[in-house]
């Protein structure tokens, strides 16, 4: 199963280390793989360093792609994390 969704970074500091760490931690709880894409550049959502190198300031739209048996659950969880502005 593959689920694709576009989400917007809404917290003021953009995708900074603390948010990236939350993404990696959450993605690690699922069996599916997660990818982040910005401007044709796609990285793994399990790598905090890759997420940081995407360099997403506030307002950036990123495309999330989840691949695997629980891809839909993973995408739901990610959507919630984005909506909660990574708990900040």
């Amino acid at each position: 199963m593959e689920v694709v969704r576009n989400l917007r970074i809404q917290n003021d500091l953009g995708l900074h280390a603390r948010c990236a760490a939350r993404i990696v931690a959450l993605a690690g709880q699922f069996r599916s793989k997660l990818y982040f894409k910005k401007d044709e550049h796609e990285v793994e959502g399990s790598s905090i360093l890759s997420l940081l190198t995407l360099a997403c300031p506030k307002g950036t739209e990123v495309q999330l792609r989840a691949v695997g048996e629980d891809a839909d659950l993973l995408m739901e969880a990610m959507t919630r994390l984005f909506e909660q502005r990574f708990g900040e």
Partner: protein
Amino acid sequence: MNEVTEKQGEITTRLKGIAVSPGIIIGKARLVDRSRVKILYQYLISEESVSKEAERFKRALEAAKEQIIAYKNRMPDQIKQHSFILDTHLMIMEDTMFLNATIDAILNEKINAEWALMKSVQHIRQLFSQIDDEYLRERVADVEQVAERILRNLAGRKDENTLHFSDRVIIVAHELSPADTSAIDIGKVMGFITDVGGRTSHAAIIAQSLKIPAVVGLETVTNRVQDGNLLIVDGTSGEVFINPEDDLIIQYQEKQLQHELYESRIIRLSHLPAESLDGQLIELRANIEFLEEVTAAKDLGAEGIGLYRTEYHYLRGLALPTENELFEDYRQVAEILSPAPVVIRTLDLGGDRFSPDLAHAKQANPALGLRAIRFCLKEPEVFKTQLRAILRASAFGNVQMMFPMISGLTEILDTKEILAEVMADLDRAGMAYNRNIETGVMIEVPSAVAVADILAKHVDFFSIGTNDLIQYALAIDRINEHVAFMYQPFHPAILRMIRQVIKAAKDAGIRVSVCGEMAGDPLSAFILLGLGITNLSMAPWSIPMVKNLIRSISMKEARTDVRRIMQLDTATKVRNFAYAKIESLNQDGGEKDLSVRSRRENRPLARKGR
């Protein structure tokens, strides 16, 4: 400027850094060298050695994880907030770009673990160097620290962070992280000196709270010092001598003794009132940045905190502080001080710290740009979070707040409107706060001086921030070495502006204090007192010195002297007059060291004056 002199084959080297914690120590160096791990580059011959090498790397990595978890558990409570950095380190160790890339390089390129690791780091460094955002770009330092730790484990070195010494030593390091300081056997440390860092670096804060000398920003000290070298560290002037000559040692032993005598005399003095010979009481408060400084400030005789800087929580990176984080911090300061006051200054930072857009725009003139109250009014959500935290803390002690960089009445009215909204929110939420909290403004922009009479009708107090006022009024950037000598606190224009602000405050019946460096320097403090200031706020360690001054002058005389000073036409004449006055006090049998620090800190001025 480093002087070198010969001494029986040994050479005395003098280095000058930033003095961050006062005092003099003479002792042996102990290098805490986190970076110098020799790296060998080797190709691996057999398949067997390749898989063994991958295993060796994994073991070093696991050991590194265990070390980090152990530090995390050992961290003292007051620095627990830094533990997030350690979590990031753990995550980096498991990152594909770090872990998988290194193991792949070992297996495929058949190179040793150290080489493979350096290759991964190099790759990551290259990727990060392309990021525009400065904060994100600098996160590569975390990757380098993790790599260093693993390299050390690969080299089979004992973890240097678990330091135990048989004698008392002076710690020499490139920099000290919270993990380092939490693991050092603190009781054996005489002082710290480091290559990098500033007044708010971790080493500085730790040294101040331990009351041991420290000098930072020495640039190359770790290259120049070897384990066991004899060092003299002067944490008051920022000087460090490596392998000092005998004469110099004797000279500094004398200085050390004097400093200790002075300190003990000062400490005795610190609980006496700041009362002039003719019976006028002056209120002395401290400027601080950290909760940890409150106790030291009280010990030195501060009767409250006249300036609590709040930028730290916004600068430590990662994310904006939450309302609760700020509230906890402010509440503790308020509780410790109560019933003495704490004046919390709202955020005084440039907008570029927050938004990549602003950082990109590279404000050509940040001192005149979007910062302090201007930024807060533009980003009311950030501002409201802080105001809520301050208001909530006001239920726990004598909390006052002041706003930086006010240039006219509109900013005060806009700020008050936001404050009223926040109060209404708190009312709705049923949260306790002091409805009559006193609010004041910093007077540091020349336009605010010109309209001080207007502003005075809308606030409870003024606090004159002389550092910025001098910079803006004289159009001098202190950091620019070509004009720094023209930064003149004694400039007649500055004295007239201060007089004007005092008059406006008195006419409106509000309080006025001074919280810039002028308050902590005996020469300028003398003039401020003569101008009628009765409330000074300064760096904690300046308080005893200024109290000493107050206790040896008569306010009546000071006012007469200052009337004469106000007739003088240049900064040099003003300074010389004040200097002669303070010197005569010394000769009259006052405290001998009254003007020592003043002479040292105003070197550019003093040179001009002679």
